[in-house]
């Protein structure tokens, strides 16, 4: 029997010759392996994070003290615009897609993503889009400077930098829609036997719901920037009052995309934290079913609240009240989630490795951001705070301390599985405490600036705002510096880290920890038979083949 097996082995290998690990640049250019594509996404997202971060530091350098120091206002506006666009579409979204690519097939026992070649496409559309944004700094009139929201009539008037931006958004939209289709088909069709929907890990649930959100709203963004494009070049007047259009229409369509987009950047973070908190509390996730329903209701509610970004556009009071209450309603499922995470930690046997630190940091700071969000949802208060630094503080608490911290947590958490090596725990913890400190030094004073009335997106400000701005700028530079520690830690550990065990975390119980470390290049070529508990807990695994 054994003789026959070994005799058949070479033939088997040749028959599947195209499954061998490719080498050289072709491995990446023509990548169809979900792990390779996941890595590409993550590297791309990190380089965009650095690029967007440099833009942020350009902003903070200018705002270090009042007056114009480094940049003219036009260039400053380009920095704020591109910082926003790059962080949202270049860093956060691709990073989550990258993690989904890497981890989903491992978590649900699939051999790869459903459409491997489309996966290659959805990644390789991103670098050209990023290049267009980068190039737009060099064209006459400079890059887009209308803010990341690209409000008309600003966006209908600017130079060709805006055209490049619109085209880049189209490309990134196509990329994220293709990525999302892949995620949905993989989750719905490729789960291993036994991995039922209501047993699936939370990260899979969050990715699934996020993917649906992306498919529902990215086309709306594509539609509205297309209208801007036709207004600019083909004589239409969607947003031009001179032709009977209405600039407020732009805001309605944009925020119909824009608010779900907020949750596109938040839900995967919820999913990640729902893995890390149970792992390091050594307890199953508290209230798994309610987590699934809370995530779904957040997604549904996100379509009904868009006009809370527009309280000052002159809406009828009835509409203001509707959007105000609908927005406050979102705090309920979000509160359920925070409650469940705390419930998971309650009486848990907790340990505080780097991923756990980032996850707890996430819960604390995301809640601060959520709270300032509830403040902003009150129409009467929002009219005061609209377009002030309070808003800037709010969304950086949910996006930096929320989305970004969860991404750090995820990278530290899965780094051993991805690379087969451990990162340096000391520098990981240092990175966390350093980021936590300087993040708050940067963004907490912005609440006070906003309450005192400092408007956002300005290169110069009144003397009274100097102290808090100086603080924020110092914080921002230190925060930025800290990310180099992360980079160095990752780079060093990739080659010299100590070899990781198959299951480096005692409390980890999802499927990806059941296979060898680093994850075999072709995992689960034959689906395993699973006995699964809630949140993807593997009780028993039979079969399942890798090579």
């Amino acid at each position: 029997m054994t003789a026959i097996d070994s005799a058949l082995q070479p033939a088997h290998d040749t028959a599947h010759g195209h499954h061998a690990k490719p080498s050289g640049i072709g491995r990446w250019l023509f990548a169809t392996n979900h792990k390779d594509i996941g890595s590409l996404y993550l590297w791309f997202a990190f380089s965009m994070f650095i690029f967007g971060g440099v833009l942020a530091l350009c902003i903070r350098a200018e705002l270090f003290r009042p007056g114009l120091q480094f940049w003219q206002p036009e260039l400053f506006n380009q920095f704020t615009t591109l910082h926003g666009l790059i962080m949202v579409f270049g860093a956060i979204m691709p990073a989550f897609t990258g993690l989904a690519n890497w981890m989903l097939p491992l978590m649900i026992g699939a051999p790869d993503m459903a459409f491997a070649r489309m996966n290659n496409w959805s990644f390789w559309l991103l670098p050209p889009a990023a290049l267009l944004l980068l190039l737009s700094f060099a064209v006459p009139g400079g890059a887009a400077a209308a803010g990341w929201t690209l409000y008309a009539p600003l966006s209908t008037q600017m130079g060709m930098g805006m055209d490049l931006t619109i085209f880049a958004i189209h490309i990134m939209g196509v990329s994220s829609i293709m990525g999302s289709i892949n995620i949905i088909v993989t989750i719905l069709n490729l789960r291993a036997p036994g991995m039922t929907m209501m047993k699936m890990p939370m990260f899979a649930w969050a990715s699934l719901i996020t993917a649906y959100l992306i498919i529902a709203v990215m086309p709306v963004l594509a539609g509205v920037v297309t209208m801007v494009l036709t207004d600019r070049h083909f004589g239409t007047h969607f947003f031009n009052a001179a032709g009977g259009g209405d600039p407020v229409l732009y805001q309605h369509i944009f925020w119909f995309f824009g608010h779900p987009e907020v949750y596109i950047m938040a839900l995967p973070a919820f999913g990640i934290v729902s893995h890390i908190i149970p792992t390091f509390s050594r307890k199953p996730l508290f209230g798994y079913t309610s987590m699934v329903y809370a995530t779904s209701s957040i997604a549904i509610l996100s379509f009904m609240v868009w006009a809370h970004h527009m309280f000052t556009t002159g809406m009828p009071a009835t509409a203001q009240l509707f959007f105000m209450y609908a927005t406050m309603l979102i705090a309920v499922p979000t509160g359920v989630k925070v409650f469940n995470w705390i419930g998971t930690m309650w009486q848990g046997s907790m340990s505080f490795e780097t991923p756990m630190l980032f996850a707890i940091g996430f819960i604390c700071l995301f809640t601060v951001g959520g709270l300032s969000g509830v403040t902003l949802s009150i129409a009467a208060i929002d009219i005061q705070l609209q377009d002030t630094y309070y808003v800037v503080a709010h969304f950086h608490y949910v996006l930096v301390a929320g989305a970004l911290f969860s991404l750090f947590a995820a990278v530290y958490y899965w780094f051993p599985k991805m690379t087969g090596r451990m990162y340096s725990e000391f520098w990981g913890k240092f990175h966390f405490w350093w980021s936590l400190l300087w993040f708050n030094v940067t963004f907490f004073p912005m609440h006070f600036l906003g309450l005192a009335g400092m408007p956002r997106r300005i290169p110069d400000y009144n003397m009274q705002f100097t102290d808090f701005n100086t603080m924020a700028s110092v914080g921002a530079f230190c925060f930025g510096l800290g990310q180099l520690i992360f980079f160095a830690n990752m780079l060093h550990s990739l080659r010299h880290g100590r070899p990781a065990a198959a299951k480096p975390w005692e409390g980890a119980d999802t499927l990806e920890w059941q296979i060898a470390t680093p994850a075999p290049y072709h995992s689960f070529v034959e689906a395993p038979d699973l006995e699964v508990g809630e949140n993807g807990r593997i009780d028993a695994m039979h079969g399942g083949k890798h090579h």
Partner: protein
Amino acid sequence: MNKPPATLHDNRLLLLKLLLLACVMFVFAWGLIPVYDALCRLTGLGSLQRPDEVGSQRLAATPLAPVLLTFDATVQPGLPWQVRPLTRTLRAVPGEFVRVDYEITNASNRQVIGQAIPRYLPAAAAEYVKKLDCFCFAQQAFEPGQTKRFPVVFVIDKNVPAGLDSITLAYTIFDVPGRS
């Protein structure tokens, strides 16, 4: 007990459905334009370009403090209009019929159609200026170089709050392209 594993066909079918969803949402974005228009009509937003009805109760029974009215007009850069209010300011008692004239010139050498959009300062004053006739209710056609005079007839609602003692009525004239 387990459902059979998905085939390539199943995957492609789901792919098509999701692509269709993306296309539907793209069309939905454009569909929001008529929806927005209908909602504005329904809720009465953007109702500044319709004649008001003035019932007798809107007319003052007793003399109220006069309101200082200022008339103004602006033209967007690059458009061919010259607009001039023939009366700059006047004082009117709420309930009194007021008529002022505007002179509009088409300074270009082509036929153009214009649409005037009124604005009020303070914006809250809009609901107290009851326009009975206004050139802004319709699009106006102009021959090359033609000058026309238009009346604006309105009543200041007698329910105007006491603190509102000065109202500016300003028009902006826009081109209506694609028509001649």
